[in-house]
């Protein structure tokens, strides 16, 4: 279900049908190993796309290409319909694409508010407005439904779920157009995962599109509008969450597309 080519559309138009990010025929090899074998991938405004597949299927490689941490061997990347060449993550950030990596980028020694405003604390006459910073953080965390005991707590004392929530909230506060989350619930317990999933839904409500990479299919089905399944560097399915089931997704994840299989890419009935 590759989307129709949208080259004829005006770049920058805010039409929901223009993908924010579009990848066409992307390939990537590491030495003799072909990690991606010609992938088309699309993220449209305001949607949550699940990216699933077994270990080594190419999920992280694909997303690293989207943010410019890796460059593709072949294929093209389009943002708002026009071609781009990202050479590092700064380039993609400028275009509103933000990725949260698995290892959380928080400073343990610093408190919640300082982490939230890392490198961009509000200042007046050169001095950081500490009170205002805490007030702003409390407000923004509240809006996203995140409950933390206090914003003066160094993040070392937060639980895994709280850390993950804080990291996502910080990324979301940068108002990216696409937020890529790499296994945000992998290390979390059931309760904590639920809180993070709620947060993803709240982020989506702010019209930020989300790419949700995960092994936990129930989480993916819960939170995503659309699910893309990769198998050994190929896209084998592009399913609407509402129309599919855990079993079907599993089938795609484990089945070799070259062997007998249901028609790849067909949205399930």
């Amino acid at each position, binding site marked *: 279900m590759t989307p129709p080519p949208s080259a004829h559309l005006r770049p920058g138009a805010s039409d929901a049908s223009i993908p924010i990010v579009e990848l066409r025929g992307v390939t990537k090899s590491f030495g003799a190993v072909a990690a991606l074998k010609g992938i088309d991938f699309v993220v449209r405004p305001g949607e949550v796309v699940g990216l699933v597949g077994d270990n080594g299927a190419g999920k992280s490689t694909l997303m690293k290409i989207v943010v410019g941490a890796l460059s593709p061997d072949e294929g093209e990347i389009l943002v708002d319909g026009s071609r781009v060449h990202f050479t590092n993550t700064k380039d993609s950030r400028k275009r509103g694409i933000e990725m949260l990596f698995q290892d959380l980028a928080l*400073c343990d*020694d610093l408190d919640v508010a300082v982490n939230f405003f*890392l490198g961009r604390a509000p200042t007046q006459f050169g001095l*950081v407005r500490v009170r205002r910073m805490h007030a702003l953080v409390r407000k923004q965390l509240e809006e996203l439904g995140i409950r933390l005991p*206090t914003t003066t707590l160094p993040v070392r004392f937060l639980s895994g779920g709280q850390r993950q929530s804080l990291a996502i909230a910080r990324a979301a506060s940068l108002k990216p157009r696409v937020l890529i989350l790499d296994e945000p619930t992998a290390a979390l317990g059931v309760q904590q995962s639920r809180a993070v999933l709620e947060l993803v839904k709240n982020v989506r409500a702010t019209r930020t599109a989300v790419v949700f990479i995960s092994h936990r299919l129930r989480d993916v089905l819960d939170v995503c509008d659309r699910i893309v399944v990769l198998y050994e560097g190929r896209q084998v399915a592009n399913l609407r969450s509402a129309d599919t089931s855990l079993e079907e997704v599993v089938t795609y994840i484990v089945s070799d597309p070259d062997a007998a299989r249901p028609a790849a890419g067909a949205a399930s009935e």
Partner: protein
Amino acid sequence: MSRVMAGAALGKGRRGSFLDRYYDLPLILVFVAMVGTISFFHPAFLNRYSLISTGTEAAYFGTMALGMVFLLSMREIDLSVGSIFGLTIIVVAHLIETGVQPWVAAAVGVVVGPALGAVNGLITNALRIQTIIVTLGTLSIYRSFALIISKDMVLEHNLPIQDSYFQVLGGQWFGVPVSIWMFVVLAAILHVVYRYTRFGFDVRAIGSNPEAARLAGISIPRMRLTALMLQGLLCSVVGVVAFAYLEAGDPVTGTGFELSVIAAAIIGGTALSGGHGSVFGALIGALIIAVITTGLIQFGVTQDWALFATGAAIVGAVALDAFLKRRRLLAAEKLGVTAAAPPRASQATGADEDAPVTRDGVGTGNRP
């Protein structure tokens, strides 16, 4: 390692607990106890002359320690501080000897430090090696410049001692030597810079997690360069003020200062591992070292044992800090604010209970 944060964990309110707000308190108590003990046995320690000589001693390396707080907080270090200090004195002395107006020479001297600090920073950034290695090298290089310029002699001839430079900076204001004023005023300014400016926040962010700081858009090379130039500036300001008082330019002045400077910062609660520190603590740390060295002499203790005591103070301060941190961690846990296991620790196990696919191990052999 961490006084500040453990204290904050106890803070119920927005502004943190008592210990969080006054985290330098244990240090101040130690200092007061030391002064009290010494002056109990030797009341002469509290006379004006004794206090001024102790304060002046602390002011020299203590002012440099203020900059070291920034460097250590971002996991950097500058071993060349004593040499920058010494070279500044020689540059100023040499210029004045050759007839340059003393205030002009002093102005040139103040620029020497930031320039040498910039050299430290640019070499570190260009070669991508650690500052400890670079500054270990420039420690010798800068000292050799001082020896070369002075031809290995003490520059003390033809100095216009009556000039206002020597009279003002080498004298006293309201009965207190200018060097002590310099120390206190710079400590106050840098305390605010450390605690309340973006620069201070970014320094701590880098020390706490360099990768996170980088991802947040903080330029580590630029911050490193700035901090090393600040350190150089402090060294040369001390040099300019010290020369006005000493009225002689000895090319070996400041040899070995780096150890006292780093010790003052560490006793003051700044962690070598980065992430947090205290400028005010470094001020107290420098005073503690000065009190040990001058105070013990009052007891008739020789220099060698004073050195021993300084070393013991460093170990003692770090031990006290670690002890207080553990106690606060325990208290934090009692309050129910428990430190979670690092997120990655549990990743290997139990993370996949919702994903039968991976649990079955299907596809594990397929990984290219």
